[in-house]
Structures are given as C-alpha cells and as structure tokens.
C-alpha cells in the first residue's frame, strides 16, 4: 500500500478541522461545561466578571454581523481555525531547525515515504 504524502496528510487535518469548526460545531451540546456546572452547583458562578473582549465580533463563537445562527457559528469557527493555524503555524515555522533534522534517537525509518505530491 502506498502511503499518502505529507501534504495529503496535512491537507486532510486542515479539511477535518475546518469541517469540525465550521459545520459539526453547530450540533455540539450546549449545556454548561464541567467547570461552569460545578461553579453553579457550588455557588461561585456569580463571582465571574464581565469579559473585556465580550463585545468583539466573534465573542461567544458567533459572528455578530450574521443573523443566521448556523452560518454565524460556522463562520466564527472557520475564522478561529485559520487564525490559530496562522499564529501557531507561523510560530512553529520560526522556531524550527532549518535544513537539519530535529532530534531523533536513531536514524530515520528505512521505509520513510517520499513526498508523492508536489
């Protein structure tokens, strides 16, 4: 079996992330998360203070400029994925070792596939 090239795998992760944040997130459960629920049950939920960025265009994973609920959340999710990708991708590309392999205990596996897609 020919293994998929690195670019195919990376593209796959990107497509899955965009679909999860842009489409599937609409169907996520909306009940309070573990900490929020505990804070309500234990009686310290009201110590939460207003969020300084609470009026932003994407606050609460919605797009304030889109009225359709599904589209509003989907656009916010896609924007989030792309912003995180740009920042984390940029940061890790800056930090990486250029032109030399990172620490490996022993040399590369012999069956290392070459990039098929160029």
């Amino acid at each position, binding site marked *: 079996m020919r293994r998929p090239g690195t670019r195919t795998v990376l593209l796959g992760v990107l497509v899955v992330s965009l679909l*999860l944040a842009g489409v599937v997130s609409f169907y996520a459960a909306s009940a309070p*998360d573990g900490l929020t629920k505990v804070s309500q049950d234990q009686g310290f939920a009201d110590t939460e203070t207003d969020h300084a960025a609470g009026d932003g265009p994407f606050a609460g994973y919605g797009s304030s400029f889109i009225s359709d609920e599904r589209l509003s959340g989907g656009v916010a999710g896609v924007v*989030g994925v792309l912003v995180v990708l740009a920042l984390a991708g940029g940061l890790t590309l800056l930090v990486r070792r250029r032109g030399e392999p990172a*620490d490996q205990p022993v040399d590369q*596996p012999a069956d290392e596939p070459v990039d098929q897609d160029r």
Partner: protein
Amino acid sequence: MHVPDGFLDAPTSVGTGVVAAAAVGLALRGARRELDDRTAPLAGLVAAFVFATQMLNFPVAAGTTGHLMGGAIAAVLVGPWTGVLCTSVVFVVQALLFADGGITALGTNIVLMGVVTCAVGWGVFRLLQAVLPKRVSMVPLAAGIGAFVSVPAAALVFVGLYAVGGVAPLPLDNLTTAMLGVHLLIGVGEGVITFLAVGSIIAVRPDLVHGARRVLAQRTLEVRTSPTASAA
C-alpha cells in the same frame, strides 16, 4: 474548563500568568529540538485541530458537557514542548477573539489546559511506552490513556489554585469531589478522541507522529541486526 475572569483573585492570576509565561519561554526553546522542516507544518495544523475540537462539547452527565483539552494529543503528535506552544496559541485566540476564558485568567488557562495536560499526558504516555510492547499500534492506546489521566489532573490543579486564590469561600472537599467527578467523565471523552485522532495519523503516516519515533527507530534497528540478535 475555561476559567473566566473573577473566579481567582488578582495575586493568583498574576502568579499563574508568570508561570505560563515561563512555561511558554521554555517551550520556545524546547520546541526547537522537536521541530524540523518536515515536522513543523503539522504543528500549526494540530493547534487548529485542537481549536476545532474544543468547539465540540459532548454531553457527559445530566446538564453538563465537556470538550477536548488537547494537551496530550498535541504532545504525542508534535512533541510536549511544541504541544505547550500549540495549546497556548489556542487559549490566547479563544480569550481575545471569542471571549472564551477570561483575559486575566489567560495564564491560569494556559497552565491548566496547556502545561498540565501536556506534561501529564506526555508523562503518562512515556511511562506506558516503557511498559507496553514496543509496537506502533500501542502508540494510540498509550496516548488515549495519557489523555484520560490529564483531564482530572488539570481539574485537581484547578482545585489547588482555588484553594490558594478562590474569590468565594468554599468547602474544598466538595469542590474536589465535584471537579474530579465530572472531569473523570470528560477525561473518557478526551481519551477516546485522542485515541482515534492519533490512531488515524499512525495508520497512514506513523513517521509523522512524534511519540512514535522511538518505536519506529527501534523497529528499524531490530530488522537490521536480526541475524546477530537471534544468535544472542
């Protein structure tokens, strides 16, 4: 488990901010050893994947939900230091752009859901790797169990922080029981998602998975030395 503004007092929030900044600083150095031209592109995508899955709350019990924290999955896929960087970026974007997790609590959230889950997830993963058979197929299992443990661990650290700087006075044993109970359940979800996601990459390209490097290297070594090894 995004901590909002106001749960912890200012000195505690400053303290976690300092710890988070130091951890990110160390991670910037450590990640350099983990990232090269071949592995660096995956790191940004792992951060994007963690962000996406954090939008997917799943029900865990009556009236409550949980979502992936992602430290363990990132640590196993791209390395623990890189994992701290990836999850930290996610929490910064969530706090500033989506108002999820307080801005004064940013350090707290990076420590709890980034540093603790990466450290515990990776630590348990490496421990299991030492005792489980040295096979690539064991990597997703060890990652999943590491992820499962990392969530209640983060919940316990939250209780510790709350004991130091919680704004409302609370009986800590009640808080501990409540936090551990719900986060053990969320941990099961974390473990399953981590097992599936790491398993998917392992199935197609195990060489891209940081946590599989030692196993792959060993496998290559065994093949090359098999004539002498069988004699010994």
